[in-house]
């Protein structure tokens, strides 16, 4: 009888110990394909810049890294999907500043970027410009600002929608240069660009890759850049900083984030793997072809970056009174 009791106890002890080996197995990552959740439709700029690198990531991490498109609601559908998924490192969100901008203007967002997500690393950035149509009466940003100061509310600038990067760039321009103009939202960057090229609105804010071809052909004219320094592809275009408006500083970026609560070892592994992929020369070439800048930032630095960016957008949203109740 006693032997049986001991054997029973031993049996249960062994069974129980299997439960705890579960957490030991977590370090054995990755063992199956990883989903890279892109919050926009295939073929869009977000999708393309991610597809330029996911094969390299597969190489460095040893498992397939697959792009999963979950479009909808300007990034909310994909964001919520990852925020609510298991923190096991197999669902990674492509985080962009549109998620942060959304949080700054939407109190009822279904998830919180700081609380529900764990930033992993920053990937690329792209400079933003103010563009007008090729034969516009404005040749420099000074002319545009002068016009706006002398004719308050007459200038019309378009964006890809409320809360879009292009919208916030305009608001930043407003607060930095202290001018007032009409903001015309469109259902996306494409219709907005068409309206600019047709002369129906005066200008818009756009990322480099989006308009560069048309700038080179003369169909649009870039007036000013929101970057720290002049951009090599458009050396003749001044920055807001040069013109005396150093607060007008922003650029669009993409990074990666996992659900909050993902174990530190997994975050580190992913960060290291992604870093190797991003720093690889072949990736560098692909990124350059798409007119992005490789801007890798590691886990700790990126986390701080996300915080400061969110503060920046909170400030802009509050001062411009933008909210999506």
């Amino acid at each position: 009888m006693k032997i049986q009791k001991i054997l029973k106890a031993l049996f249960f002890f062994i069974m129980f110990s299997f439960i705890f080996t579960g957490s030991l197995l977590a370090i054995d990552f990755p063992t199956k394909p990883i989903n890279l959740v892109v919050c926009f439709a295939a073929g869009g700029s977000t999708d393309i810049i991610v597809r330029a690198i996911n094969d390299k990531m597969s190489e460095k991490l040893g498992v397939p890294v697959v792009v999963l498109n979950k479009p909808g609601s300007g990034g909310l559908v994909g964001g919520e999907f990852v925020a609510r998924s298991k923190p096991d490192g197999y669902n990674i969100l492509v985080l962009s500043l549109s998620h942060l901008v959304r949080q700054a203007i939407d109190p009822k967002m279904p998830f919180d970027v700081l609380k529900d997500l764990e930033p992993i690393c920053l990937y690329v950035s792209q400079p933003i410009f103010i563009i007008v149509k090729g034969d516009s009466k404005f040749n420099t940003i000074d002319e545009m600002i002068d016009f706006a100061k002398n004719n308050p509310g007459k200038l019309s600038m378009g964006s890809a929608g409320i809360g879009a990067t292009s919208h916030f760039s305009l608001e930043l321009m407003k607060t930095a240069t202290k001018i007032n103009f009409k903001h015309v939202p469109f259902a996306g960057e494409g219709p907005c660009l068409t309206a600019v090229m047709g002369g129906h609105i005066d200008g818009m804010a756009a990322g480099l890759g989006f308009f560069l071809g048309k700038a080179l052909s003369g169909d649009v004219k870039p007036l000013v850049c929101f970057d720290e320094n002049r951009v090599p592809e458009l050396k003749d275009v001044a920055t807001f900083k040069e013109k005396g408006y150093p607060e007008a500083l922003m650029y669009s970026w993409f990074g990666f984030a996992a659900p909050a609560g993902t174990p530190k070892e997994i975050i580190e592994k992913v960060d290291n793997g992604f870093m190797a992929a991003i720093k690889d020369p072949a990736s560098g070439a692909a990124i350059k072809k798409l007119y992005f800048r490789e801007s890798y930032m590691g886990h700790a630095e990126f986390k701080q970056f996300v915080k400061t960016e969110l503060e920046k957008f909170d400030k802009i949203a509050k001062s411009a009174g933008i909210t999506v109740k």
Partner: protein
Amino acid sequence: METLSSVVSGFSVVLQPANLLFCFVGVFVGTLIGVLPGIGPLGAIALLLPSTFYISPTSALIMLAGIYYGAMYGGSTTSILVNIPGEAATVVTCIDGYQMAKQGRAGPALGIAAFGSFIAGTISVLLLSFLAPPLARLALKFGPPEYFSLMILGLTILVYLANGPIIKALMMAAFGLILGIVGTDIITGRARFTFGIIELNDGIGIIPVVMGLFGISEVLFNVEKIIKREVTKTRIRGLFPNLQDWKNSIGPIFRGTFLGFFLGILPGGGAVISSFASYAIEKKMSKHPEKFGTGAIEGVAGPESANNSATGGSFIPLLTLGVPTNGVMALMLGALVLHGLQPGPLLMKEQPGLFWGTITSMYLGNVMLLILNLPLIGLWVQVLRIPYPILFPLILLFCLIGVFSVNNSVAEIWFMILFGIAGYLMKKFEYEMAPLVLALILGPMFENALRQSLIIFEGDPIVFLTRPISAAFLIVSCSLLLSTMLPWLKGKRKLLSDGD
């Protein structure tokens, strides 16, 4: 003739074996995609986009273009056979095409759709080759005020889609406008009537609505009826359109081609609007408008030609200006960017091989599609002979898969089912569905264009009349409305003169 030599050089590009193969693969895949309800060219191109990374940009564009207009060909097949639109642009084909199928004339319907699409596709490519740059400039002249007036015209003509009492059609149109409100308002960024359901933030999707209203409701309706032998085994009368059919269709085909081409150039739903507009025009011009809705071949020939030629037109802004006109074109733009090309006005000059190769591939693609589709007509017609108890679960299955494939969203499946039930009730009480669909598409565009115009012009509505293109559309809309009053006015006059 510089263009002619460019076209010839384009042919030399496309006649290379690799490109011919990609063209064929594209149109073949496109036809399959078009036939399967719900899954549209957008989904297929999105899936195949990454694989184009490994082939040359010219071949990639040829293949993707083939998928696009191939899907337009295939989309009409299910519309005619089982009243399920393969795409929003083929909704109108359901109206008369399905009636023809019920009368055993599915063959001629499919045939005229194929021939009409071929003629339209070829003509639109011809127009594209010679008129691309000036037309692109014309498209740029369309700003928010012009879109507003175009939408007014669109909403006016939707009355012509009604086959029954106008009041019922108007009720359905009003309902469509109300449904169009659901979603995020782009002017203020606020979500309207979404009840916290995140999938509604982008509005009620058109695909679930269309597949529910037309496809699911038809299945429910048929299943309710006692399935008589005659319904499922209608005698198949002829596989190809006869001489009378051709005589009736030739006008609609040419009118549809030109209408579709010019509407396709405009960013924003060219193919859909052009198919509805073509239907309305044919009905208005017909000597026997009461036949529409009961199987008039003009109601198939016109819209099918229009939506195919709109695909040709929609390439223009992309290839000449680098501006995409719809989701598919945006993906093509993505494909070009992926290859390091910058689509814009310089593309034609810097990459003549790509530009003219793509355009000439469309000629060949249209020929391939005709050769592919004609023999298949006999096969498709046999599908109708499958006993309905076996056919309808398959239809439901394809609808479910199709809707899910668009956005990987289970919520959209529920919407489709909801609209299926609604559509069934509408059928029972004889309410029209086409006006609802058109209003659902046009409503948001109309509202956005109006508010954007008012923001730009600081609330001054006179701008709609002072800008020539906008004024033209408004005048046409007014004339159309007044023309429907003419018989009534004539009657009144007669009454007055008789009373003397």
